[in-house]
């Protein structure tokens, strides 16, 4: 069965520093992968997605993610974090009609 693991429950990063969020998936076929962001009290917003092709995917808000099939990973990165990036981030893998989500990583940004 498909599954997603986000090893880091909580990450604290200084404003202006780089950020990397880890995501590992388990899926038998070529995965469709997503990263979503959820600000406090809000719904989920899609940051980026990977279906095929170039393994480095660019998204909104300056985020990018790299798909590594050999490591079953789809890590999210941002070179310089802004205070507004404080949120919860979810990685997800699509299986037919459905998304399976990881448990999420909460990002705190300190001044």
């Amino acid at each position, binding site marked *: 069965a498909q599954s*997603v693991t986000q090893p880091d429950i909580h990450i604290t990063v200084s404003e202006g520093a780089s950020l990397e969020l880890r995501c590992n998936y388990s899926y038998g076929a070529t995965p469709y992968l997503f990263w979503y962001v959820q600000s406090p009290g809000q*719904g989920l917003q899609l940051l980026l997605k990977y279906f095929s092709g170039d393994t480095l995917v660019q998204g909104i808000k300056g985020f990018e993610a790299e798909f590594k099939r050999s490591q079953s990973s789809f890590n999210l990165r941002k070179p310089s974090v802004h205070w507004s990036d404080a949120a919860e981030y979810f990685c997800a893998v699509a299986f037919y009609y*459905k*998304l399976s989500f990881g448990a999420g990583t909460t990002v705190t940004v300190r001044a």
Partner: protein
Amino acid sequence: NAGVTQTPKFRVLKTGQSMTLLCAQDMNHEYMYWYRQDPGMGLRLIHYSVGEGTTAKGEVPDGYNVSRLKKQNFLLGLESAAPSQTSVYFCASSYGALGLAGGTEGSSYNEQFFGPGTRLTVL
């Protein structure tokens, strides 16, 4: 274009009461979904629908029922609420099936759009 809307935004129920959550989308999407979000568990799929008049069970369907009588609406019902159903409920919709080929790279064909959520507390 309102996207995905959910009614109500907040609700408090007593154990044993019933209620219906309404999800509406104006994007002519075929697929609709109901998730629940609990701390440390991400989002878990309750039920989904691949088209008008169809529904199917997700990961955690027990205690919930759904109906999709109109393409734009997807209703989630709790017949007899329990404290374990205290959660934040999200509705989502998509035009295409997420894990199947379709659309063009960069399009939103396979993207799932989420509503703002309903916070439900069962006492």
